[in-house]
């Protein structure tokens, strides 16, 4: 049996990320295209200070540990689809 690829999407639940659009990101689960639906797990994470320690903009999301700033549902889906297409799953 081959090991299943799972994309772990962690959405920052810190107040800044929440206010700057992160509040809507959990809707990701309702928007996932069929072909990747079963491969994506959505979770929350507490503020890991990306908001104060980087010059990047919120909301922040980690996808299998990879940091995404100014995250949006579209951006997350694109990222995962690209990984699938180019077989760059990490």
């Amino acid at each position: 049996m081959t090991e299943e690829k799972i994309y772990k999407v962690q959405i920052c639940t810190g107040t800044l990320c929440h206010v700057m659009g992160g509040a809507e990101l959990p809707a990701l689960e309702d928007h996932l295209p069929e072909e990747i639906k079963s491969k994506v797990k959505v979770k929350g994470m507490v503020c890991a200070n990306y908001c104060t320690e980087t010059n990047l903009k919120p909301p922040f999301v980690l996808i299998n540990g990879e940091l995404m700033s100014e995250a949006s549902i579209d951006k997350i889906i694109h990222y995962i689809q690209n990984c699938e297409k180019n077989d760059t799953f990490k």
Partner: protein
Amino acid sequence: MTHSNNATLTRRELLIQLCKLLKEDTIEEQIDRIPLNMRPKGNQSLRCCVHKDRAVLKYKIMALLGFNIDDETDELTSLQDYLHLAKERKTLTPKVMTVVDEACSSCQQGSYNVSNMCKGCEARPCAVNCPKDAVHFVKGQAEIDHDVCVNCGKCLQECPFHAIIYSPVPCEEACPVKAISKDEQGIEHIDYDKCIYCGKCMAACPYGAIMEKSHIIEIFQAWESKKEIIALVAPSIIAQFRQSVPKIYNAIKKMGFSDIIEVAEGAEMTIEHETEEWSERMHAGCQLMTTSCCHAYTELVKKHIPELEGKVSETPSPMVYAGKLAKERFPNAVTVFIGPCTAKRHEAFFVEDIDYTLSFEELGALLVANNIEVEEMNNEIDIKYANSDAQFFAQSGGVSRAIINKADESLKEEIINGIDKTSIRQLKQIAKGKTESNFIEVMSCEGGCLAGVNSLIKGKQAVTVFQKNQEEISS
């Protein structure tokens, strides 16, 4: 796909910047720098150039300081000057929104236009089917004569190449009562004789050109004066953070509110009195009664459907009752209503017991400025929650649900879920008696206050969070 967009996020970023400077007490020196910091040189500009971008931001800040953009007399007035004026001002205004003309892109008048996909085909169904003969062909391409066109859209439906496009004016399209329109320069203006304060134009504008005038300055002044400040929180607040209700309330208290009163507690009184009023009216032979808690709806009746006037419940809204409770319990306190609604800001202006209003977006910005993580708050709080019927006022159908639970079984409800052009026609029919129902609930936002224009979480997500949190506090 989601509800927030860059225009919304710009507004929130401005709010956060403003609240941070107020909190750090560096606003005097720093306020005129906000536009520069947010749009530094060398970065790509959204509009023609970075200077235009900054000018737009300046005026958006002016609105957040509580000013009407139209009232500017000298363009050289700095934000620092406006800050001083804001601090000196003694009264608020009932005109709760303002158009930032610098940001308004004067979208072309809503119209049908022929794109270059037009092949000038032989069939020319666009011209054949136009009832006004407004389509002509110039050099083999269709052209629409806008002086004759009545915007019926037949050409768009008929064109086999989808060559005809409709370009809307988003704010005008969103306004259910034609209260926003262009001046000679194409800039939008709100006609306050028609406006029902629903905030739909604000949510619709892709340039974020329509801004709510914030009370942030007044609220900070109240904090500085060390007065007691009471937060009156609308029931929809429990859908605004994916955190437990005690944590949310504790976060608000930590920010500097001495106590919390749930507006749902006021809703309990509204339910009581509105049910009684309905029964009395039915006994007196009235055919129907409508709700009165949604302020955009009562404004709609006043300004656009006067035939319904006598049929609107006279029971005060939950906010009014909550304000009364607050001033009874804390006679010297400053009261701040916290909710998702532009119309409530207008209503509050006329309610003596409510001093200021804070939107959910502004609340979020204040939490950020105070470095408060809702998640880290204590999960215990000493509060007697309002009953769940009252909490459900936040959702479309909630008022009916509460009244049904109290009234006798002769009550037949009808729910108008959202005010738009169609539901206004429906209400006009109801005014003529064309309904089987005797209790009409009207909510301006589709979905109720959970879909309020200032919400951080909206739509299906808000409903899910609301239900989860509601269950937790009612068990």
